[in-house]
């Protein structure tokens, strides 16, 4: 009983902290983006202001929208992504719900939030939102393939190379970095998997060049075109959270090293140091994997993005899979 209570409390506290960090990172993203464009950029706390403002604005439900889906979708979307953080070990802090879930569940949670957004788009009854929702669906179908390949390959590799623990659980990967287990072919394969997973990130978080479903200049913000006020704020949170969540998962899978123990820290300090180090890694990944990419490229068209994920990224992921299998055989 007390266990459940502590988990509940610590979970809530953690999620709150994560929410703040995710929004802050969104601010960093915008600032870095602006600086790279030789602009001064917004204050770093800008996303906080935006979200708070949106919460006190009027919440309009279009007359042609299906109200309960329209209002429920943002809530579901944001909850689903928040849930992801319950399964991600942060530094030496074990995941709150470690026993209950694994990588497959995380992938599903991401998909669930995307589906919620699609449902919201379809429910808003605007042709632009409709197109946006269709695009999001197509995009989802495209990036799920490389994502599935990466996740299953990693789990298979972990299982076959005899790493202790549940093969699909993130704690397994964190406890024993795969880079150390693999041979040179395996390292190559892991690198390929890493790159293909990073390629999925912009699509998951809806940023250029994969912001096809929300393209402002094409279909007027698409999916979220009809949303305002509180609902829009929740979608903004969803995007920020997805960004951090995706990067957190990548960090757990590929860069699970901790700093605390090598500094000789113990107890609470170890937890704090590792936690901070974990989020530092997430930030770095976010800046290099999302912000730089979105500064350097334009937007894909939907079929170009599909092709990109099916052929290039999918191919790379497959190559990674083959290399890792060869490594296992060798």
């Amino acid at each position, binding site marked *: 009983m007390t266990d459940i209570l502590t988990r509940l409390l610590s979970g809530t506290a953690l999620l709150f902290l994560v929410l703040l960090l995710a929004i802050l990172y969104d601010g960093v993203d915008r600032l870095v983006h602006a600086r790279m*464009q030789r602009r001064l950029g917004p204050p770093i706390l800008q996303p906080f202001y935006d979200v708070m403002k949106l919460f006190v604005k009027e919440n309009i439900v279009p007359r042609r929208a299906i109200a309960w889906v329209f209002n429920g979708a943002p809530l579901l979307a944001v909850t689903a992504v928040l849930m992801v953080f319950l399964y991600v070990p942060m530094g030496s802090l074990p995941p709150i719900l470690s026993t209950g879930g694994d990588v497959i569940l995380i992938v599903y949670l991401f998909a669930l939030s995307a589906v919620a957004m699609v449902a919201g788009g379809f429910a808003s009854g*605007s042709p*632009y939102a409709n197109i946006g929702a269709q695009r999001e669906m*197509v995009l989802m179908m495209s990036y799920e393939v490389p994502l599935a390949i990466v996740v299953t390959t990693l789990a298979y590799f972990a299982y076959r190379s005899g790493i202790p623990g549940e093969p699909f659980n993130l704690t397994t990967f964190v406890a024993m970095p795969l880079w150390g287990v693999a041979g040179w072919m395996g390292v190559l394969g892991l690198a390929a998997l890493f790159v293909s997973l990073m390629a999925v990130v912009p699509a998951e978080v809806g940023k250029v060049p994969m912001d*096809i479903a929300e393209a402002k200049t*094409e279909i007027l913000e698409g999916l979220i075109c009809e949303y305002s006020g509180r609902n829009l704020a929740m979608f903004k949170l969803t995007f920020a959270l997805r960004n951090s969540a995706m990067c957190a998962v990548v960090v757990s899978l590929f860069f699970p090293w901790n700093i605390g123990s090598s500094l000789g820290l113990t107890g609470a300090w170890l937890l704090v140091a590792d936690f901070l180090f974990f989020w530092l890694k997430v930030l770095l990944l976010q800046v290099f994997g999302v912000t730089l990419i979105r500064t350097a*490229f*334009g937007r894909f068209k939907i079929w170009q993005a599909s092709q990109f994920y099916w052929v290039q990224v999918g191919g790379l992921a497959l190559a990674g899979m083959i290399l890792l299998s060869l490594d296992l055989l060798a």
Partner: protein
Amino acid sequence: MSAGSHKTYRIPIGPVHVGLKEPVTTWLDVDGERIVKATVRPGSIHRGIEWMARERNPIQVIYLAERICGICSFTHIVAFLRAVEDAAKIEVPIRAQYIRSLVLELERVHSHILWAGVACYTFGYDSAFNLGMLLREKVMDVLEALTGNRVNYGVGTVGGVRRDLTPRAAKAVREMIEFYRREFQTFLDVVTEDPIAKARMRNVGVLSQEDAVKYCALGPTARGSGLRVDLRHSSPYEAYGDLGVTPLVPQDYNGEVFGDVYDRFFVRVMEVIQSLELLEKIVDGIPEGPITWEPKLPKVLSALKAADGIGWGIIEGPRGDDTHVVKLTKGEENVTWWKVRAPTYANAVSWPLMFKDQEIADAPLIINSIDPCISCMERILVSDARAGRSEILTRARLVERCREKTRRLMGA
């Protein structure tokens, strides 16, 4: 996507758009992502400028002509002035002609860079947009130094220009040329060599050479389709007869013509570089002399009052040739009638062809591709089925409605 089912629905792009008669609503019949049919409906910004001119004398019309379009304002002025000068048989001093050409070329530079930036913005390439706009500020500074204004310069007058080219301004122009020679290549590289940018523009919105002729396409749109048409070459005006302009077509650089958005983009960007050369020739070769045919306005007005006839002014603006026709009647102070044909007016006819079988994602880009005015990018409207409401809203009713909504919000 709605595979199999062929239910099409209509989405509007527009209506907010720019220019005298250029604002356009485009209704796209869409099947999934594919455009089946496009219907173009201009008119949202029809202000009746030609009708307004009937109550104004030619000098007053200059300021009206300037506000046909804020981007190519000087183009409209010069076309109008040439029409008036043709009707009234007024000779413009050479120095004034050179200054007119100078401002026209500066305007072309600013318009093309603006367009290129906005095109990048349209397909989500914000960094290139920002880089382009950063570069554009330089030419805006020069225009400001030369004329005192950033937009709507007000330098043209019947029989000449109102501002002389001071040595300081000439120095600013030279500096600007140097600056662009140094910096513009970066922008060119960033955009023309970026794989995504190229993928977004290549084979999009194709207008074949044959259609370009048939639908009377103009300016960069026609040149992007491979036609060697440029009024600065085929019927030189002002100082262009001395400058020797050759039409810039993509086949001279890339070997082949696609007639797509990329080619139009390429033509515009290369024309900026061409304009720099022209600007240099103008600044070097500008002769001394008066800048107006007659500095006293009452004298000009009386000469215009005595004039009788139709004049035709046609010049190459940044977007294509700009045609103004003016009728002056003897004994009447005001313009009898005036016809303006902004380039987009002609280019828009070929829009439906470019839209055919393209994707919605490309629609704003295609709209942009002929019209380097700031596009519909942030001005695409959602038009909904509630338009059928018959109630007429007064302002008081609107305020009431607004408050009602507030109460509803606070109650919730």
